[in-house]
């Protein structure tokens, strides 16, 4: 195996790491699905999303990979685990799903999966690897382009000669602003919602 692979050099490791990260991603995703312990689920989710960041790196999206690690894994999931800890009472840590729901869920999900898998290999262009003509991963330098795109300049589309297409070349400035405002609103809203106005529970309330 090693010798065979040796012929195609660095892409062997590329493939190797793809399989490695893909297995981790899927495996831990299944872990999230099949675990009943909410804390373990959160832990598996961390690993699954972390491994998928590895897939991003392999696809040359270094910036997005790092973003995934920083915002998703380092921020959102910490928040999630925080929520788990705040609500972690022994009776909520393990909540069993009724087996009827399992059967239904797995049946529907299985059909969906089959559909998606068949689609994944339908298009020839998708299933053909770029092969040796592909670019080396060393040269992934997209972060400043992404930055420019967010501020409204598409560096990668500068050669766009089609007048009509060039008109839509303003990048993602508007979505970027919308998302920024959205985030602000969400933060305020979340902070407001998490407040309880008054401890209005009677003596019998739990906790």
């Amino acid at each position, binding site marked *: 195996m*090693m*010798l065979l*692979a*040796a012929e195609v*050099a*660095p892409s*062997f*490791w590329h493939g190797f790491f793809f399989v490695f990260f893909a297995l981790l991603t899927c495996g831990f995703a299944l872990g999230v699905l099949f675990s009943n*312990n909410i*804390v*373990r689920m959160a*832990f598996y989710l*961390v690993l699954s999303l*972390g491994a998928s960041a590895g897939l991003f790196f392999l696809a040359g999206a*270094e*910036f997005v990979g*790092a*973003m995934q*690690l*920083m915002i998703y*894994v*380092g*921020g959102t*999931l*910490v*928040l999630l*685990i*925080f929520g788990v*800890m705040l609500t*972690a009472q022994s009776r909520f840590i393990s909540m069993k799903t009724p087996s009827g729901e399992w059967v239904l869920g797995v049946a529907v999900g299985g059909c969906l999966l089959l559909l998606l898998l068949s689609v994944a290999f339908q298009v020839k262009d998708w299933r053909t690897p770029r092969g040796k003509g592909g*670019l080396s991963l*060393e*040269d*992934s*330098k*997209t*972060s*400043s*382009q992404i930055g*420019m795109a967010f501020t*409204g*300049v598409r*560096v*990668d*589309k*500068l*050669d766009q000669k089609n007048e009509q297409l*060039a*008109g839509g*070349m*303003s990048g993602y400035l508007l979505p970027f602003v919308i998302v920024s405002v959205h985030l602000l609103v969400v933060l305020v809203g979340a902070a407001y919602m998490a407040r309880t106005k008054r401890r209005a529970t009677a003596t019998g309330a739990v906790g």
Partner: protein
Amino acid sequence: MSPTVADFFHNSFRLPESLAYLTAAVIHCVLIILVVAVGALLFIWLERKVSGRIQDRLGPTRVGGAFGWLQTLADGIKLIAKEDITPKDADWLLFKLAPYIGFAASYCAYIALPFADGWAARHMNTAVFFILAVLGIEVFSPILAGYASGSKWSLFGAIREAAQVVSYEVPLGMCVVVPVFLCGTMNLVTIGNMQAGLFTNWLVFNDPFTFVIAVVYFTCATASVNRAPFDLAEAESELVAGFHTEYSGLRWSFFFMAEYGSMFLVSGLAAILFFGGWHGPIPIGEILGDFLAYVVTPLVGIVAWLLSFVFKNVHTADHVAVAGHIANSLGCLNFLLKGLIGVTVMMWVRWTLPRLRIDQVMTTCLKYCVPIAAICFLGALGWRVADWTTGADIPLVGIHYGKGGRGMVRESWVEQTQSAKVAENDVPDAPITDPNASDGPTGSVEQSPDELLTMKGGDQ
């Protein structure tokens, strides 16, 4: 691009390329492990010595000779021999895994940290970002450990850690962004190289705002690696030992390996981002350029020549590379020294100051660090836009020693992009645009922002 280690193995030993890569990877891993593990050994010893001196006592004196330099090793052996206890109420899987997550994250972040010009395990154009991201993952270690221990004190530590680290990532990110936009790249090697020359070239002296930013960065870094006065997650006077209350033996020591690993990491990052990286305060190499040219370079040449007997297939390029690496090792020492100073300052702070309270920690972050960082961010941006005098412009000794201050690099970048644009215009039917256009000044196809804007305007 200079030949990589993998190329060296491939060329010199005729290893198949995949094996060459594997060997190179293993070598890098081992080197980083050495840095982290030996670093931890050294730092724990140093911590004891420093704290001892600060507290008017001796610290370790016996093990391993005069300075007790083997004390940490003896402790390590003791820790390995200790019983590994898992509490009854613990979630055993998470309890056992948690220490390794922290260590793995701390270790992983070293991948992108250059120790000298080009001496990084993996060159990344988003190195700064990557290090911050991976350091952010380290927080899972205390959180999971605290949660899985099944102890209330541990849980308190975990919650404190979660709140603290997530909050401090905000000002930390803001501080880190300042050198990034000053240098126009997230590549740590480039950022480091841009500060070559006299120490006034260091970004910390770039303008008053960067000076403040450097201080804020160090504060936030101290907080994000959980060192006193921000070590609330393990506050012994309140939470017994916080998240690692229930740990013993080797697992416990992994937390400390991770802590000391990240201490050096953030100090090293500070050194690169603000304090000139692997460049000394005075560019001795340039001042003594003649000496180097006439004495050292022949020596290096002889070494390379001797090496060529051993490795028959070493190319001339490798000679140059070897010579560069030898020169680089001096820079590496420089960098290690700067990191060490950072770590020592953290120790000094720890043994001097009382611990803050959790609300005060959050106040420090949200009321002080974030606004100061934001103001300094804008200030530094304004300074750059206004093109006021920077530290690099101040002639201290009368001569500019710098193989290219940041200003020069900037200009050359613009020049390059302009020439590239000209070239592009010359060849209108160029194939699809290379999406791998440069991320920084080293590249050639990058467009300067102003031009792009004008172009866009023209298009409309």
